[in-house]
């Protein structure tokens, strides 16, 4: 295996070093003694170092805007491979290495080897392998290397997520994950085969080198949509996502939600970049799927009361928002509207980065809470912010950011997508020929999603962190250690920084967006997003200024002073913590309103007699698509096919008859 061409460019070399270091980070831990945690320390160090190198490489590639491709020969994957770093890859590498480094650091505190001597080395190893394989996915330049990395990623995630396989739900989640991942891979087999048939090479074609209007192109796009959609978690292919995110250790969930599902988005972005004239229905399909995923994702999230499942459904929502952005960009490309392309793709990519930041932050925060409280059930928590003040603050930052609230990063990316949609609908500087009503629908849909996300996160934050603890716990919840707080702090800081000063993020974004454009379009020198992001800084600072200005007015010492008292109980006698509004009751109205889709299940106790026994009422929202669509379908199919299995009945004479009949049939068919 040899790299052809001259030496590696600096960014490629850095990224390659990062991949190697992260891939090997868990190896020492597999052989070293387990009790003292040396292996994990080495692994964490290697991961942080590797991530740092990779991050440096990616930033370098983005700032210089240079791209490089290398051919690997000498019997590698039979026909050789191509590998390279271009701005588009580099942009995806940023959240990856960021979360990999933070996640590894967090993992050393969250899942210490000293406490889990047998499971931790395995987890550490696969976490490193996972990070490296995702990096390889982003940098592979031919189908075989890509699929190799893609499937190693799936296998590594499977092993990482089944770390605690003594629990039944973890095993089931693992199985579901693996099956869904493999379904996706099989569709990708078709995808890359078709692509090869179109280009007669496994190497990825250059941006804009194919024409989109043909039937093979449609097949390639659709297979990409399904194959990558499985990984991205686009509805209705998201079935594996909630349980997998809930079952995995928290830093793995963070990486999964932050980066791995983005590899599906990467695939879609990369594949669509090949085509210079996609038909309009491509963009409309993506936009539609995006709307469905976003709205349905957030609705399902509202119904959850398992903290991590709730976050998982929000990943589906955000993937939907990203898909909407890509849809806008594609519509822009097919109607020849540059601003739409720029704003759509820019918004999608920035939202992808942002989502990685705040969702990573939220999962890590959720991990700390679960670590401290010992349950994932929201309705049993409460008042956690008093015990874990810093975790609470970080989680709050993430929660506000994911709702798209200014002045945080989530707002910036949604703003770009909104701007693209508005420009398209209003016809400003652009003429969109088709998909106008769809785009007009997308705007209020996005607004609805924002409102629902807000409802969901005030519920989650309020019930978990505020109020009073709802159950007597054996152990006092305690604040997480430094190794867990530091990663959260970094992510929270980045959320604020990008929110207040989006220019920095946009500076990194623009080369990546340019990479999506056909080479012939002359975008190699870079693009400028038609969005006044400077104003966002101004408005953010203004908001902070006003807040700071009001504080002294509202809170200055006054003659009356500040008195403490119990919460106003409306004249109720002896209120108890159990009487607080729970997450389920908070969401009840919305869940009922959308009950046709969410299909909530209520477990009502039977109440009888004048003095009924204490009873428990509970409700939950199932994974509707899986439980009410796929599983019944599978069951039905299985029932239909079952009788055919009697063909294997054990009677030899009939088996010989099969042979005879086969001969006769073939003889009759012969020309």
């Amino acid at each position: 295996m040899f790299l052809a061409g001259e030496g590696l460019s600096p960014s490629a070399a850095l990224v390659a070093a990062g991949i190697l270091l992260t891939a090997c980070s868990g190896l020492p831990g597999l052989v070293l003694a387990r009790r003292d945690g040396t292996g994990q320390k080495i692994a964490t160090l290697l991961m942080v170092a590797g991530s740092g190198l990779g991050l440096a490489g990616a930033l370098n590639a983005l700032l210089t805007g240079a791209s490089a491709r290398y051919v690997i020969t000498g019997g590698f994957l039979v026909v050789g491979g191509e590998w390279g770093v271009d701005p588009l890859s580099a942009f995806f590498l940023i959240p990856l290495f960021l979360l990999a480094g933070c996640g590894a650091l967090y993992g050393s505190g969250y899942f210490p080897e000293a406490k889990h001597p047998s499971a931790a080395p395995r987890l550490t190893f696969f976490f490193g392998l996972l990070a490296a394989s995702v990096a390889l996915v982003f940098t592979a330049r031919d189908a075989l290397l890509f699929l190799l990395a893609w499937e190693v990623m799936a296998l590594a995630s499977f092993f990482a997520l089944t770390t605690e396989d003594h629990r039944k739900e973890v095993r089931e989640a693992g199985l579901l994950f693996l099956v869904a991942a493999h379904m996706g891979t099989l569709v990708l087999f078709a995808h890359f085969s078709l692509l090869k048939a179109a280009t007669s090479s496994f190497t990825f074609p250059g941006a804009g080198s194919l024409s989109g209007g043909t039937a093979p192109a449609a097949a390639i796009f659709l297979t990409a949509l399904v194959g990558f959609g499985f990984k991205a978690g686009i509805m209705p292919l998201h079935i594996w996502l909630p349980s997998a995110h809930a079952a995995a250790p928290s830093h793995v969930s963070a990486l999964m939600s932050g980066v791995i599902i983005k590899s599906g988005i990467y695939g879609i972005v990369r594949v669509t970049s090949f085509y210079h004239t996609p038909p309009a229905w491509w963009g409309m399909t993506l936009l539609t799927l995006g709307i469905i995923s976003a709205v349905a994702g957030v609705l399902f999230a509202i119904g959850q009361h398992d903290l991590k499942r709730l976050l998982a459904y929000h990943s589906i929502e955000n993937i939907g928002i990203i898909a909407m952005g890509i849809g806008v960009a594609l519509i822009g490309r097919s109607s020849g509207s540059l601003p739409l392309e720029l704003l759509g793709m820019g918004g999608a990519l920035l939202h992808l980065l942002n989502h990685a930041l705040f969702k990573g932050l939220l999962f890590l925060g959720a991990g700390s809470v679960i670590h401290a409280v010992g349950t994932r059930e929201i309705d049993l928590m409460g008042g956690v912010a008093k015990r874990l003040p810093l975790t609470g603050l970080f989680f709050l930052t993430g929660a506000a950011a994911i709702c798209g609230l200014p002045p945080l990063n989530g707002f910036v990316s949604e703003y770009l997508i909104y701007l693209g949609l508005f420009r398209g609908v209003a016809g400003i500087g652009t003429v969109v020929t088709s998909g106008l009503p769809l785009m007009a629908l997308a705007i209020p849909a996005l607004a609805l999603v924002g409102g629902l996300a807000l409802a969901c996160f005030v519920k989650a934050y309020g019930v978990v962190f505020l109020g009073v603890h709802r159950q007597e716990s054996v152990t006092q919840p305690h604040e997480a250690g430094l190794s867990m707080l530091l990663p959260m702090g970094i992510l929270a800081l980045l959320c604020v920084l990008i929110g207040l000063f989006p220019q920095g993020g946009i500076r990194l974004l623009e080369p990546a967006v340019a990479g999506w454009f056909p080479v012939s379009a002359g975008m190699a020198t870079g693009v400028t997003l038609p969005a006044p992001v400077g104003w966002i800084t101004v408005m953010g600072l203004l908001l902070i200024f006003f807040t700071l200005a009001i504080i002294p007015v509202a809170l200055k010492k006054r003659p009356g002073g500040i008195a403490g008292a119990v919460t106003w109980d409306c004249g109720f006698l002896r209120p108890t913590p159990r009487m607080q509004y729970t997450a389920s009751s908070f969401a009840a109205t919305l869940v009922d309103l959308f009950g046709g889709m969410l299909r909530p299940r209520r477990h009502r106790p039977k109440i009888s007699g004048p003095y009924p026994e204490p009873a428990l009422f509970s409700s939950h929202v199932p994974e509707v698509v899986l439980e009410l669509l796929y599983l019944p379908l599978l069951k039905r199919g299985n029932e239909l096919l079952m009788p055919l299995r009697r063909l294997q009945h054990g009677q030899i004479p009939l088996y010989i008859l099969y042979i005879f009949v086969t001969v006769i049939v073939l003889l009759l068919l012969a020309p």
Partner: protein
Amino acid sequence: MIYLALLLLPLAGALISWFTGSNLRRPRLLPLFGAAHFILTLLAFMGGPKPVLSGWLALDPLGMVALLTISTLYLGCAVYAAGYLPSRRRRSNRVLCLGMLVCLSAMSLVTMAHHLGLLWVAMESTTLSMAPLIYFNRNARSIEATWKYLLICSVGIALALLGLFFLAYATLVAGAETTLLLEPLIAGARRLSPAWLNAAFIFLLVGFGTKMGLAPLHTWKPDAYGEAPGLVGALLSGGLVNCALLGIIRVYQICMAAGDVRFYQQTMIGMGLLSMAFAALFMLRQTDFKRMLAYSSVEHVGLLAVALGVGRGALFAALFHLFNNGLTKGVLFLTSGNIHRSYGTKNAEQVRGVLQRLPFTGGLFLAGFFAITGSPPFSPFLSEFGIISGTFGGGHPLVAALMLLFLAIIFMGMASTILPMMMGSAPRESGTVVGYRDRFFTVAPPLALMVVILVLGIWLPEPLRRLLADGARLLEVAP
């Protein structure tokens, strides 16, 4: 010279083992002769020997691929047997050792026979020498399995003989000198009577297909694979299957040279798809993990048949897959033997926590599962993907889509059987079951095979690539 060595060395080993008295020492002969055979095979691979006996024996690239697969797999099985048989020392292994060595000789003969009559004789010998191996466990189920295997395969092979006669008759009708030598047949294929050639193709396909396990001729397969010891299953699925496939390939070579090839190609594709569909049908909700592996074998035989039918574009991958499938099946069957011994059951629902109780076996079985279902970084990925992309590229998108559908169903079936076996906590062992654990001899062979397919999954050495490419060229439609 090397031909005779390859044939006679195992036979000599068979004789020696027959006259070795000790039940404990006898299995040690197996790795010895396996290794010798492997070394000879490597020598042959590097030497590229010329045909002998006026063309009756020759190792062309196709035969070489099969021989290489068989010899590598056999070495693994032999080492495994040396570790496995002593654990069952109360049962005489004399017949088993004899059968294994005779079978090795017969399989080698299949790979190098270029006279189709000789090929047939060798093929029937492999069938017969395998029978006592399947029967090793001596219980009602293994007797049933052996009987089905023997009768169905014998009938199949008899039909293949008829096919051979048809082939010879095709030359007779064409007015040429009747012969069953491969090279003259290929050279004169265009002049062969099409009707008789069609008939010959059908009977040979059904005949050897029965032995290979193409649906609906596969009926004996789950029974035999399920009841035979793991290492016999490995030899059946990696050795005999490849022999039978080679038999079909030989006929196919002639057919491809005959001009109008549509019927042959379509038949292969049809039978292949049918096999994959059957495998998918029976792998859903399969609770017996060894039978599941048998159906997986049916599936891969189907995959190979489709690849042959598709032709150019999928042929390289097909030959590569022949090799990969053989070795991967070896890993799966050998480790499944370990699981069977440790848990005392083949019912997957009673097997839990293999990774915990038998970490190496479990890991290898899991890796084998991933490999056989076409996951990178294992070499079957390259070959399966190659076949599928070749099918798409060869203008059969519908066929390829169906294949993907079957592969998807099969994955679902396999995963939902295998993953619960692997994960979780192992049940407490009852008093009757001996604490069977991973040992060097029962783990090293599958591990070695696994390493081979892992390395090939990333890096294909040039000589091997050339061999496969040369072989693929032999199977292309004559211009």
